[in-house]
């Protein structure tokens, strides 16, 4: 039991936040090798970096393992306020505008040379934020796909949906044949999934108009996606419980849910969530809004960025370029960290020749994945993605729970996001 006052707690938390990240600045001093610190959450990153350190005795990179996602964004911004940000930091695409807005990331357009041609335009545009600057190098991407239990689809006589209309029919058909099962669930605890689905439908949530931001979360494309999932949840064709819970793991492992709309990294998640189903899954392109199209959204994916606090920006940019474009580095990233590299050459290269162990039946897994990735729709991120995402969790969580109108939830997210921008002093185009 804690009987200190809240103020002490809050103050202590704030103070701690300000203190974290101490001792992370790159070593200075003219003698000896340049020392760089790199905050990353990718597993096995230290082994990839070891390759660099072997070949470059004059630039030594040290990896500090971090928690992923939103936590690292806040931590990096806090560290940058104290002038203690690391030289290099792993950041998700949607966090870049927030980090740039807080003056954390350095423009490395002069240092990265012609790295641009290694990446798909839709990916590259996310690290430039549509400007002439380059704020990071793409590391991995998460083109979205449809994963399903091949054996159970056969057992229930279902065909793999190629359009969202067919997807809805498949869900209803399964409910009819096996009422206790569900095709999948609509989960509200990761807004990235919904954002990816909206991108596929053509949504561009944040764009700029001169010196104003334009927010279009409640646009026609996104509303189409929200209504589609909302009606499936409402009629009970799919489940409404969140992902990544023990119950969800069990549903996938026992075949209570027989499909998952996810991204290229899904095999890794399924390996831990549903270990008993190895070899029973297959991957297909994401269902399309228009028959015969090849469009997909992105869910996840991250970049390597250089911070303004770095005293060796040139060396740091050189390392970031090596890490994300050098064939040897990319092969190591695939092998050690299990990422799906953003560099196009690596997506069809030797490193990704073999299908993931969990999808051993699908020998052409990566060939198909690369083809799907070609159709990745562009994403448009703004300075308060975090606010939109947390509002999404609450609004869509409540709507999914009550099986109520998703359109209303979408309006809430839109309005919350606009109100936050205005409160911060941004000019928002109507």
């Amino acid at each position: 039991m804690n009987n200190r006052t809240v103020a002490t707690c809050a103050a202590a938390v704030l103070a701690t936040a300000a203190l974290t990240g101490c001792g992370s600045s790159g070593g200075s001093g003219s003698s000896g090798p340049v020392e760089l610190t790199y905050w990353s959450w990718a597993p096995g990153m230290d082994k990839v970096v070891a390759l660099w350190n072997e070949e470059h005795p004059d630039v030594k990179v040290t990896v500090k393992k971090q928690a992923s996602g939103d936590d690292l964004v806040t931590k990096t911004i806090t560290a940058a306020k104290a002038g203690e940000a690391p030289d290099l930091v792993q950041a998700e695409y949607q966090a870049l505008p927030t980090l740039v807005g807080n003056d954390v990331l350095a423009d490395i357009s002069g240092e990265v040379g012609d790295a641009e041609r290694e990446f798909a335009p839709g990916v590259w545009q996310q690290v430039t934020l549509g400007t002439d600057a380059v704020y990071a190098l793409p590391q991995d991407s998460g083109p979205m796909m449809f994963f399903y239990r091949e054996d159970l689809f056969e057992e229930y006589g279902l065909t793999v949906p190629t359009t969202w209309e067919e997807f809805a029919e498949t869900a209803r058909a399964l409910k009819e044949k096996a009422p206790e099962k569900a095709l999948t669930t609509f989960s509200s605890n990761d807004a990235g999934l919904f954002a990816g689905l909206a991108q596929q439908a053509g949504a561009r949530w944040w764009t700029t108009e001169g010196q104003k931001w334009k927010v279009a979360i409640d646009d026609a494309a996104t509303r189409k996606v929200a209504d589609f999932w909302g009606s499936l949840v409402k009629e009970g064709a799919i489940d409404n419980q969140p992902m990544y819970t023990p119950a969800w793991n069990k549903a996938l492992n026992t075949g209570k849910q027989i499909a998952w709309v996810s991204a290229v990294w899904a095999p890794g998640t399924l390996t831990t969530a549903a270990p008993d189903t190895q070899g029973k899954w297959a991957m297909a392109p994401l269902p399309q809004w228009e028959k015969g199209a090849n469009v997909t959204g992105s869910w996840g994916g991250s970049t390597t960025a250089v911070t303004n606090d770095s005293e060796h920006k040139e060396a740091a940019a050189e390392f970031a370029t090596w890490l994300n474009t050098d064939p040897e580095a990319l092969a190591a990233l695939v092998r050690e960290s299990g990422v799906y590299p953003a560099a196009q050459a690596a997506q069809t290269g030797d490193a990704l020749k073999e299908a993931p162990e969990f999808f051993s039946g699908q020998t052409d897994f990566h060939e198909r994945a690369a083809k799907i990735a070609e159709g990745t729709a562009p994403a448009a991120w703004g300075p308060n993605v975090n606010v939109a995402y947390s509002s999404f969790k609450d609004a869509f969580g409540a709507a999914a729970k009550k099986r109520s109108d998703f359109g209303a939830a979408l309006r809430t997210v839109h309005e919350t996001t606009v109100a936050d921008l205005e409160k911060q002093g941004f000019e928002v185009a109507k």
Partner: protein
Amino acid sequence: MTRRTPAASAPRATRAARKGHGERRAPHLFLLPAVALFLLFFALPIGYALYLSLRSVRVQGLGLGSGARREVWAGLSNYADALTDPELASGALRVLGYGLIVVPVMLGLALVFALMLDADRVRGRSVARLGIFLPYAVPGVIAALLWGFLYLPDVSPFHFVLAEAGLPRPDLLDGGPLYGALANIAVWGGTGFNMIVIYTSLRAIPPEIHEAARLDGCSQVQIALRIKIPMVAPSLVLTFFFSVIATLQVFSEPTTLKPLTNGVSTTWSPLMKVYQDAFVKGDVHAAAAGAVVIAVVTLVLSFGFLKAVGSRTRQGESR
């Protein structure tokens, strides 16, 4: 009860006679570490939080690149926002509902357990005491996870048994039952601590008083109601005080259960709202204002309660 005697004045007189130069400085020197620590780790952080709560960040243009964000004085606007925020208010209401379950149940159980352990002719007293106390040693996050898994319909053994028996299976992580589910975690974890506090003060009651009551023909229940409970009233007040503060600060249980259900929002309790502001929105200024508001409410409620109780006992004494 013992009466306060006037402070002993004799020793002070002799000390005053011997007061030298060094001795006048000595108390200040002895105080220095405590004062320094207080200033450094209590007053300064609170002062900083107050300062932050009066500032805010303004953005210019697109908010990209250097110099796009400036910190400015915001006056009391952060407080106005916090006080008019419907999310903070409904969070406070949720915590009130939660507290109305937790505090009476937890303290009631703690008192009953303490009285049972203190009764004559109890076997296995130390084992029982340890058993009731043990959950308190389980960290709050672990307790919440443990219970969360027991609540989740698809992995819960209770749900399995209910399903096998053909009975309806309530969703404990939603709507009204959610309050009970959260309260249960707090009661499970906190009863032992409060029981120990009450039990310790029960043991301090002189045995002659029991004996006298028994000779006068009191039953065990009457002894408990007429002798023991009035005599441990101060520790009941203390445990109530602690429990109210702990309830107002509820954070780790709902935060831990949040990923398991759509029923808990990211701003379920006021402290969760502060956490969201600080670490998800990255707005320390709004978070600081929210924290100050919660701190003031906590202070007013808890010290108001202590004052009310204090004046009542003083009245009782003078009667």
